[in-house]
């Protein structure tokens, strides 16, 4: 079977599993975990646009995620409808992404990372300290979930399907982006920024647009998150959240479409399982970081693929040497 056919078959199976998941899982708890995985996958895919394809590592994306969530919550609290709240959330997140991008793109590499980290901390500070606006540490409750086309998302299964729909649209948009000329030029700015400039590309503008695209989906993920939890607090904007989503991207493998999704599943499942047994989630998160960086620096998906090929070759090796005869 060719690689493309394998991938196609894999995609069909994955889609079939996702589409029928509530039917065979049955339990509300697991359906909710699946929703969580999908919404964090949207967030991780968004960050991957910058980290994987743009070569720009952001540690402030929790800020953008939180802006989406908080705007939705505040608009709903002010008595606005769901559509207005969601549109406002997207608009505010995009505006905030533009501010982030203008400031952070003064630098690349580590400078970019440090500036996004600082900007993310500012947003956390606002969420935490500006109690008149954000209700501080107590957070904001969102009492209702929307009902698009008359289907209420109040229970687990419809919410799962809504999240799945958003996830698929996000995934499709990423696939299109990666295959588009814009995606190619984004990878170009990652690998050879000087050559891209010499070729007449506006490197800054390409990165800026990629940041907006990433910010858009981060904001959408934030909206999903606030509807899922029906509550938002400053913890969402904290550095831990940025680190967790970065871990999803890195652990799954950057610059792949499947990587962030697998990473989101691993992190969300680990977090839920670990939290059920011990309270030391941060310790586990830190250890996972250290272990992955030390032993599988390219990420779990490419890393496992490498280990798989390696064991496969070792098993196949005796046969090959027998037929090839004198190969060293």
């Amino acid at each position, binding site marked *: 079977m060719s690689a493309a056919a394998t991938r196609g078959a894999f995609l069909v199976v994955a889609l079939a599993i996702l589409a029928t998941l509530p039917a065979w899982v049955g339990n509300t708890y697991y359906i909710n975990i699946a929703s969580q995985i999908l919404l964090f996958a949207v967030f991780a895919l968004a960050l991957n646009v910058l980290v994987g394809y743009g070569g720009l590592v952001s540690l402030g994306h929790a800020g953008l995620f939180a802006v989406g969530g908080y705007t939705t919550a505040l608009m709903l609290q002010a008595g606005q409808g769901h559509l207005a709240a969601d549109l406002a959330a997207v608009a505010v997140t995009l505006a905030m992404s533009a501010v982030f991008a203008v*400031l952070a793109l003064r630098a690349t590499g580590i400078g970019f*990372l440090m500036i996004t980290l600082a900007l993310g901390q500012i947003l956390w500070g*606002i969420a935490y300290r500006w109690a008149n606006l954000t209700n501080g540490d107590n957070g904001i409750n969102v009492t209702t979930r929307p009902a698009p086309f008359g289907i209420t998302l109040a229970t687990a299964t419809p919410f799962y399907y809504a999240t799945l729909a958003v996830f698929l649209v996000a995934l499709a948009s990423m696939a299109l982006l990666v295959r588009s000329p814009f995606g190619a030029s984004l990878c170009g700015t990652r690998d050879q920024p000087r050559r891209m400039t010499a070729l007449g590309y506006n490197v800054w503008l390409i990165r800026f647009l990629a940041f907006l695209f990433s910010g858009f989906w981060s904001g959408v993920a934030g909206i999903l998150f606030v509807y899922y939890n029906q509550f938002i607090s400053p913890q969402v904007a904290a550095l831990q959240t940025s680190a967790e989503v970065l871990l999803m991207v890195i652990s799954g493998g950057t610059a792949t479409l499947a990587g962030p999704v697998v990473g989101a599943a691993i992190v969300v499942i680990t977090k839920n399982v670990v939290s059920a047994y011990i309270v030391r989630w941060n310790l586990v998160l830190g250890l996972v970081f250290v272990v992955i960086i030390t032993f599988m620096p390219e990420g779990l998906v490419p890393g496992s693929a490498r280990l798989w090929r390696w064991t496969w070759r070792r098993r196949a090796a005796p046969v090959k040497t027998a037929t090839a005869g004198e190969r060293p």
Partner: protein
Amino acid sequence: MTLWITLAVNSIAMGGLLFLLSAGFSLIFGLMRIPNLMHGSFFMLGAYFGVSMLAHEVNFWVAALASGLAMAVIGAVIERFLLRRLAGQELAQVLLTLGLSFIVADLCLMIWTGDPWQPSPPPDLRGALRFGGLFFPIYRLAIVVIAVVVAIALWLLVDWTRLGAMIRAGVDDAPIARVVGIPVSRLFTLVFALGAALAAFGGVIGAPYLSVYPGLDGEMLPLALIVVILGGTGSMLGALLGSFIIGFLYNFGQAMFPDLAYVILFLPMLLVLVLRPQGLFGKGTV
């Protein structure tokens, strides 16, 4: 009027503490280009070491120095056995130090619980000086003196000694420095250890003023970051000036605009990034 002077004294003391924190960060991030996201953890862990020793009736200064020494060893081990394997891979270094900072934070929470610890200052430095009808807490003034002494010592070390020249040579062109016989790797371990020790020392010195609590690491790291971006990476003078600017903004911001204190703290950094990306005294960009 009294309020303003009290605020100003607190601001200067805070600036001194921030300098102890960010001088090490400036060495590690500015000179060695290692994005050390566990610098706040060094500060917090050092402070916890200090308060534990103080709880066992150890002399304050002995505790501060011992804590710095312990952190120097920990820093050296981290640099030698983990970070060096990742030389030149900034992203991997970021993730490694971030992961370690989570581990440290959780371990601290486990060992020292969630309650804040606030030791009292050393006996000789308690009380306040009376001057012109105003009271100045002696300990806060002492922090400033310590910071200035450390600043001068670091400046002399980096700019005027043979060791400093070798470190600068190693940073500027490591391969050539190695060729002429400078043990660059060993020097880098030393600088990393020194930076960690300064942060831990600062943590103990700051404990009577700031107290020690979970989350202190996450609060101090961005502050070190702003100070270094503001002052320019690798510049001791920049770090000193940046520390006092942030010290003032921190105290005045919290007194005048408590809701937006955090935003005010970051504004000068944003201005510097837009207008002068190399920082006030920096040579290269961030």
